[in-house]
C-alpha cells in the first residue's frame, strides 16, 4: 500500500484541471472527425459514389520513350522499336499455374522462359503486372488478344524496346540497357513509379549507363477504364510523358565499322581522334559482341562464351585496356630531355647494341648496334640505347611529368565504362605502391616504354594529337545532347618549345616515309596524306625469343601511333594489336589503312598505297566492304 504524497491534493487538482482541458480538446477533435466523416459520407456521398463507379478507371503509366543515340552524321546507333509482350497480374489470374498452362498452348514459350515467368510471378506483389513473355510475335499477341476471356489477368501489351542496329560496332561505347535490378539501386536514381513497370530497362554499360538520367525521360500517365478483372476496356485521357534526350556521338559510323571489320580476327583496339576538337571519330575494341543479346536478357551459355573467350570481347580495350607503350613512348622521353635541356638534337650517342647500367646490361633491339645516333635517327630507327642514355641524364620525374602533359598516366574524362588511368611511374609511386626504392634500371626501362609504364590506346592517340598540335587536346565522345553542342576538347597551347616539337614531328615523319624508317613499308604514297608515326613493340615476357615460336598469349603486343596529314594534322590514330608481334609488321599497316580511310571518308584509291601492296590491298578492300555491318532491317526477332 502506498499513500498519496504530501502535495497530493494540490497535484490532483492540477491534473484534474489539465486532464479535463486535454480531454475537452480531444473531444473537440473527435467532433471534428465526425463532422468530416459526415461531410464526406453524407454531403459529398453522391460525388464520391460517382468517383467510385469511375474507379473502374485506373491510372496507368506510360513508359517514356528512351532518348536515341546518333553518330556524328545522324546515323542511328540506338533506337526504340515496338515490341510485344504478355503480362499477367497474379491476383486477377487466381489459379496462376492453370492460366500459365493455357497461355503456353497459345504462345510458344521455351522451358527457360516458362521457368522465369513462374519465378517472377511467385515473387511479385499480387497486384502488379508481371511480364510473362517478352518480344513475342504479332501472331502470338493476336492469339492472346482473341482469347483474353479465357485468360484472367493476362494482357497483351505493346511497348518499346531498345535496338542497336549497328550490332557490334558500338557495343563498347554505347553499351546496352537491361531490366532494372536490385543491383542498380545504388547506381541509378530513378523515380519509384517508373520502376513499377515490369522489367523497366535502364542503361547497364557505356553511354547508356553514363547518360541514364538524360536518356530515360519522364513517364506519362493515361486513364483507362478497366473492368473488374482489370482488363482495359478503353482509354479516356492521356498525359504524355517527356521522352528522353537524344544524344549525338562524335563517332563516325562509316569509319567505326570499317575499323571493326579491319580488326576482325585480332584481339586489338584502335582509336581515331580529331586533332582540332578532340572528337573521337572511332574507338574500336576487337572482338566485339552484340548488345542486342543483353537487351533481350542474355542466355547463360552465350554469356559464358563471352566471358571465357581468350580474346576478351567484353572490355573496351580502347579505353580500359592498358599496355606498356613500348617505343611509342620514346617521343615522351626525348621531349622531356629536350625541354630539360639534357640533350641537343644534333648530339650523337654511340650505340654498340647495349648499355651497362648499374652492373646490368640493357640491350638495344638491334644486337649489332646502331653506331652513332642523333635524335632524328634514334626515333626513326627506334634505337634503344639512345633512350637509356636520355633516362640517365633526364631522370624519371621529368619523363613522367612530360608523359602526363601529353595525356598519359591520367584519366581522361569520358562517359564510358571504366576509363583507365594508365601509369606514368614516379619514385614516390613506387615507394607508395610497391614499397620499394626506385632504381636506375627502372628509369632505363621506362624510357623505352617498358617496365611500369602503362597506357591505353585512347591515351596514345591523345599523345599523338598533342604532339601534332602542341595543344592539350582532350578527347570528347559526346558531340551534342538534345541538339546542344558539348564543349570541344580543343585545348590550350601547352607551352612546349616549338623547335623541339618540330624535331620530333620530323623524326616521326621519317619513321613512315624514310627508307630507313621502321614503318616505311606501311607508308602512304599520296603527298597530301603523308603520315608521321611511331612503331612500338611491347614485351609480354622478359626473355627475348622469336615471336613465331611461342604460344599466342606470350607474343609481344604490336603498337603504332601516328598523326596525319603531316603538314596540317587533322587526325591522330593509335592501334594496339595484342600479341600481334612487332609494331612495324602488325600494327603499322592497320594504322595506315585506318588513316587513309579516315582522311578520304571512303575507300581510298589504290594509288595511295605502295605499288607492291596494291593487289593485296584491293582484295582486302573488297573483303572488308562485304564484311562491314549493315543495319539489320526492322523485323522482330521471333517473327
Amino acid at each position, binding site marked *: *500500500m502506498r499513500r498519496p504524497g*504530501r*502535495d497530493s491534493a494540490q497535484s490532483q487538482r*492540477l491534473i484534474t484541471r489539465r486532464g479535463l482541458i486535454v480531454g475537452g480538446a480531444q473531444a473537440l477533435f473527435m467532433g471534428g*472527425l465526425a463532422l468530416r466523416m459526415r461531410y464526406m*459520407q453524407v454531403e459529398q456521398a453522391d460525388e464520391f459514389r460517382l468517383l467510385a463507379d469511375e474507379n473502374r478507371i485506373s491510372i496507368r503509366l506510360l513508359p517514356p520513350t528512351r532518348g536515341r543515340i546518333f553518330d556524328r552524321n545522324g546515323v542511328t546507333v540506338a533506337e526504340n522499336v515496338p515490341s510485344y509482350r504478355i503480362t499477367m497480374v497474379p491476383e486477377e489470374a487466381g489459379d496462376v499455374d492453370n492460366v500459365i498452362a493455357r497461355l503456353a498452348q497459345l504462345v510458344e514459350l521455351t522451358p527457360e522462359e516458362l521457368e522465369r515467368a513462374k519465378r517472377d510471378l511467385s515473387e511479385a506483389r499480387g*497486384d502488379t503486372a508481371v511480364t510473362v513473355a517478352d518480344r513475342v510475335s504479332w501472331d502470338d499477341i493476336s492469339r492472346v488478344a482473341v482469347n483474353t476471356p479465357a485468360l484472367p489477368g493476362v494482357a497483351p501489351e505493346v511497348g518499346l524496346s531498345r535496338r542497336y542496329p549497328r550490332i557490334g560496332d558500338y557495343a563498347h561505347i554505347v553499351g546496352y540497357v537491361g531490366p532494372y535490378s536490385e543491383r542498380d539501386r545504388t547506381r541509378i536514381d530513378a523515380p519509384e513509379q517508373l520502376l513499377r513497370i515490369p522489367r523497366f530497362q535502364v542503361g547497364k554499360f557505356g553511354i547508356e549507363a553514363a547518360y541514364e538520367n538524360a536518356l530515360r525521360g519522364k513517364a506519362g500517365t493515361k486513364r483507362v477504364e478497366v473492368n473488374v478483372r482489370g482488363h482495359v476496356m478503353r482509354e479516356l485521357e492521356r498525359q504524355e510523358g517527356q521522352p528522353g534526350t537524344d544524344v549525338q556521338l562524335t563517332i563516325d559510323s562509316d569509319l567505326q565499322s570499317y575499323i571493326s571489320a579491319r580488326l576482325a580476327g585480332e584481339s586489338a583496339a584502335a582509336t581515331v581522334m580529331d586533332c582540332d576538337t578532340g572528337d573521337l571519330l572511332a574507338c574500336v575494341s576487337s572482338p566485339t559482341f552484340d548488345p542486342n543479346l543483353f537487351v533481350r536478357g542474355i542466355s547463360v551459355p552465350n554469356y559464358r562464351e563471352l566471358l571465357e573467350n581468350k580474346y576478351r570481347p567484353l572490355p573496351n580495350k580502347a579505353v580500359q585496356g592498358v599496355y606498356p607503350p613500348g617505343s611509342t613512348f620514346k617521343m615522351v622521353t626525348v621531349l622531356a630531355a629536350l625541354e630539360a635541356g639534357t640533350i641537343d638534337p644534333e648530339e650523337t650517342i654511340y650505340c654498340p647494341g647495349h648499355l651497362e647500367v648499374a652492373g646490368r646490361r640493357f640491350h638495344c633491339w638491334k644486337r649489332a648496334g646502331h653506331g652513332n645516333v642523333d635524335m632524328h635517327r634514334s626515333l626513326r630507327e627506334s634505337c634503344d640505347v639512345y633512350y637509356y642514355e636520355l633516362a640517365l641524364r633526364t631522370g624519371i620525374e621529368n619523363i613522367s611529368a612530360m608523359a602526363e602533359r601529353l595525356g598519359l598516366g591520367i584519366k581522361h574524362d569520358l562517359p564510358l565504362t571504366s576509363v583507365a588511368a594508365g601509369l606514368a611511374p614516379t619514385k614516390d609511386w613506387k615507394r607508395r605502391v610497391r614499397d620499394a626504392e626506385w632504381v636506375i634500371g627502372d628509369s632505363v626501362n621506362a624510357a623505352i616504354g617498358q617496365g611500369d609504364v602503362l597506357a591505353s590506346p585512347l591515351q596514345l592517340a591523345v599523345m599523338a594529337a598533342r604532339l601534332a598540335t602542341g595543344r592539350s587536346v582532350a578527347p570528347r565522345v559526346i558531340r551534342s545532347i538534345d541538339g546542344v553542342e558539348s564543349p570541344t576538347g580543343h585545348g590550350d597551347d601547352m607551352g612546349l618549345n616549338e623547335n623541339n616539337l618540330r624535331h620530333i614531328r620530323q623524326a616521326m615523319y621519317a619513321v613512315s616515309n624514310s627508307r630507313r624508317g621502321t614503318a616505311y613499308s606501311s607508308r602512304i604514297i599520296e603527298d597530301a596524306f603523308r603520315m608521321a608515326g611511331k612503331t612500338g613493340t611491347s614485351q609480354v615476357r622478359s626473355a627475348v625469343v622469336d615471336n613465331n615460336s611461342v604460344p599466342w598469349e606470350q607474343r609481344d603486343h604490336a603498337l603504332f601511333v601516328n598523326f596525319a596529314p603531316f603538314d596540317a594534322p587533322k587526325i591522330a590514330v593509335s592501334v594496339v594489336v595484342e600479341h600481334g608481334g612487332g609494331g612495324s609488321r602488325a600494327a603499322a599497316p592497320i594504322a595506315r589503312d585506318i588513316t587513309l580511310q579516315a582522311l578520304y571518308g571512303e575507300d581510298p584509291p589504290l594509288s595511295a598505297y605502295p605499288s607492291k601492296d596494291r593487289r593485296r590491298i584491293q582484295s582486302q578492300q573488297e573483303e572488308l566492304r562485304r564484311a562491314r555491318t549493315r543495319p539489320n532491317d526492322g523485323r522482330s526477332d521471333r517473327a
Partner: protein
Amino acid sequence: MSYLEYTVKTTPTGLRKVLYLNWPLAILLAAIASVGFLMLYSVAGGSFSPWAEPQIKRFALGFAIMFTVAMVPIWFWRNMAGVAYGLSVLLLLAVEFFGTSAGGAQRWIDLGFMRLQPSELMKISLVMFLAAYYDWLPVKKTSHPLWVLVPVVIILVPAGLVFAQPDLGTALLLMLAGATMMFFAGVHWAYFAAVFSMAAGLIFAVFQSRGTDWQILRNYHYDRLDTFLDPASDPLDKGYHITQSKIALGSGGWTGKGFMQGTQSRLNFLPEKHTDFIFTTLAEEFGFVGGFSLLLLYTLILVFCVSIALSNRDRFSSLMTLGIATTFFLFFAVNMSMVMGMAPVVGVPLPLVSYGGSAMLILMLGFGFVQSAHIHKPR
C-alpha cells in the same frame, strides 16, 4: 482533505482483484477488436485467413497480457519505469545497428513469433517514465526551468533515435505524447506557448524559404508537402492512396454498401487495405453509421480512462492513465485524419482494428497499466 484526515482502506488482494477490474473498459476493448476481426474477415473476401484468424489469436494474447499486468500492483510498475525506459532506449540503439529494415523505414527485432518494434515499445515506456518522473518531482518545482529541461531530454533522446530510423511520424507522435504528459503534470503555460509560436514560425519560414537561396528543406521534401496539400498533383504514388481512400470512404454514404459489399477495397484499388487503411473498408461497407459508431467506441474508451485518472489520488496512476489514453487517442486521431485526407500519409495503424501485432500488444500492455492503476488505487 488533508493527508492526516486520510483514511486508509485496504486494496483488494488475490483473486478478489478480478472483481475490481474495470470491466466496462475491458469489454469496450474487446468490442473494438471484434470490429477489427469483422473487417479483416471482410477484406479477405469472407475468409478467416490470412488476417482475421491470427488477429483473434493475437488479441487473446493481448488480453492475457493486460490481465496479467493488471494483477501486479501499480507501484511495482512505477518502480520499473526507469528500467523500461532504459531498455527501450537500448533496443532503439540496437536496431539502429543490428535491426532488420523493410520498406526503408520500419526497424524491428525478430523475436521469432513476432517482430518487435522498439519504437512501439517506446510509446508506452516514455509515458511511464514521465509519469514516474513527475510522481517523484515535488509539484512546486514542476515549472522550474531546470526541471522542465530534464523531461525535454527524456523525450528528445528516443524521438531523435526514432527520427534517425527514419520514421518521422512516430518521432512526432512521441514528442506530442511527451509534451502532453508535461502539460498534464502542470508545466507552466508559457513554455507551451513559446514552443508553439516557435513551431509556427519555423513552418512559416519553411514555406517562405522555398525557391530562395536559404531554402530549408530539400526539393523532394517540398514535393511531398505538395502531394499532401494537393493529392491530385501526384496521382500515382502517395497521392494515389489518399485519393482512393477518400473515394472508398465517401462512397459509403449513410448506411454503407453492406457487409462484404465494398467494391473499392475489394478491387485492389486500395493498397494496405488490411492495415493502415482498414477504416476505409469499414466506412465503405457500414457507412456513416458504422464509422461514427467506431468513433463513439473510441470516445468511450477515452471517457473511461479520464474518469479512472481523475478518480485516482495517486499521481503516478493518474498521469500514467492519462498518458495511455493520449497515446491511444493519437493513434486513431492520426490514422483517421490520414484516411480522410486531413493529415499526410504516415504509417500509423488504427488501434486494435488494423492487422498487426506490435501496436495491438503494446496497447493492451498499456491498458494493463490502466487496469492496475484502477485496481490498486488508494481507497
